[in-house]
């Protein structure tokens, strides 16, 4: 094993990086940022800049210019506002349901289940990821059609499903994105040192208190990480609504309908999910820093 003095001489690169945090930061960020900004953001910008442009009603080709009409439309047409609010509501509901299910699941898997059961459960929650997005949406259709599996199963109890509507969209999206929440949450609970629990219970805390005081604060970063997935993915989705939403329209539906016919409107309307995500991340960061205090 080398000593510290060796190290200065024998590892010039490492020591250079150690002494220059700015260089370290730049070298860490340069590749990913070149990728994201150079490839993605530039592409996006070239597309979204058209939000201010005009569209030739005849050819539906865009020409450079500056007008705010497209934005005004997004904020004044009642259907667009309603769709934004509906989509936000759906994305938040999906996220809330995912958290409510993922935390008990994670605690059970990490702290109660025997190792063999834990491994089976870990496989069980990741397996549906592979069934295919469209296939899962269609499977949800089969479950919730009028004469489908759900009503067939519940018929003896006299319960009938709601038919294709917003609740089914929320369920479908929850179904699609749940593993994206469950996996980080479980991983985080797994990594809580067992002695923390011991300490908590030694101090007389009951199970729920331990969960509330010890587990939750420790897994907030993971919940936030997972919620970013469930929230963002739900915000941008429109195929689930198309297949299981009945007459439900989401932000993505409007953007998809306009993207080649009227790119400026699509571009202007794309600002809405961007704004939602920005606000969401800001709130999440605030929560994250509160928890650290």
């Amino acid at each position, binding site marked *: 094993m080398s000593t*510290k003095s060796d190290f200065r001489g024998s590892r010039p*690169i490492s020591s250079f990086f150690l002494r220059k*945090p700015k260089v370290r*930061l730049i070298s*860490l*960020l340069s*590749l*990913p940022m070149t990728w994201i*900004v150079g*490839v*993605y953001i530039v*592409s*996006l910008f070239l*597309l979204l800049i058209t939000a201010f442009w005009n569209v030739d009603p005849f050819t539906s080709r865009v020409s450079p210019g500056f007008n705010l009409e497209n934005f005004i439309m997004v904020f004044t047409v009642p259907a667009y506002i309603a769709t934004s609010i509906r989509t936000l509501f759906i994305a938040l509901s999906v996220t809330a349901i995912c958290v409510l*299910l993922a935390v*008990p699941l994670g*605690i059970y*898997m990490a702290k*109660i289940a025997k190792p063999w059961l834990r*491994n089976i459960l*870990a496989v069980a*929650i990741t*397996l*549906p*990821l*592979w*069934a*295919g*997005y*469209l*296939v*899962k949406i269609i*499977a949800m259709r*089969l479950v919730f059609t009028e004469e489908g*599996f759900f009503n*067939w199963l519940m018929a003896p109890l006299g319960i009938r499903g709601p038919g294709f509507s917003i609740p089914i969209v929320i369920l479908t999206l929850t*179904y699609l994105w749940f*593993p994206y929440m469950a*996996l*980080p949450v479980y991983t*985080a609970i797994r*990594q809580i040192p067992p002695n923390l629990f011991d300490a908590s219970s030694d101090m007389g805390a009951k*199970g729920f208190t*331990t*969960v509330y005081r010890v587990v939750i604060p420790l897994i907030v*970063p993971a919940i936030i990480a997972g919620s*970013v*997935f469930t929230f963002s*993915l739900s915000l*941008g989705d*429109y*195929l689930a609504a198309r297949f299981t939403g009945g007459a439900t329209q989401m*932000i993505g539906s409007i*953007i998809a309908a306009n*993207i080649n016919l009227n790119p400026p409107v*699509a571009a202007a309307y*794309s600002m809405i999910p961007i704004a*939602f995500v*920005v606000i969401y*991340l800001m709130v999440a960061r605030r929560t994250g820093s509160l928890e650290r205090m």
Partner: protein
Amino acid sequence: MLRLSRLTRVALGGVVLFILFFMYTPLMVLILNSFNESQISGWPIESFSTKWWEFARSYQPIRDALLNSVLVATGAMVIASILGTLVAFAMKGFSFFGKGTVNILIVLPIALPGVVTGVAFSNTYSNFLTPMGFNIGYFGMIVAHSTFCIVMVFNNVFARLRRMNPNLQEASADLGAGLWQTFRLVTFPQFRTSFAAGALLAFALSFDEVVVTIFTAPPGVDTLPLWILKEVGRPNQASVVNVVATVVILLSLIPVYISQRLARAQEDER
């Protein structure tokens, strides 16, 4: 160990059972439908047959599509893992101007509807790269997929790094380990589980993606989701989709098993 009352344990077990029921009912309906005689899936199934299995076995386009999906998802996973981890370290170790912006930039690709991302990429490819004499072709699909997969790895790794003890790295450096050595021996083992989870989710997200792929896949190349979309659009053999989904679920036991082993190996080390 977490001490929970019997009632709480039973309640938690009940929630878990409910989740499993919720997750597996559609899958079961789907798997049973792969044996549905009819061209269109339905419930209840009126007559069973293995004809779609036989059809799928000799149907070359499925294998081509599956291969494409695995290639693209692997490429995207590798690139996203590297880039996502780099960003996570930058965000963890430093506070700098525009940190929040970086975070937003990374989440953006999954927050925007796929159609925006897809059209943006295909615009750039066909209006800028191709005229410059650079035909991106197949790689264009991997580039697009990597971009929206970065967030998967970043978020998982970042969440773990925030809970990690920085003293260990300092200790390692004090003991004379180089940056790479510290990373390999000290830092990486600590976040390996989260890294594996993130990579797995990235692979799954890319493997499943439909909308971005429609616009970025080169002519004639189908990934599995594109192939499924095609079959769904032409109902005369829609049931074969269920066979493929069933097979993919079974095949996916392999990567899931590997990631499980990784996680377990780490546990043993601790």
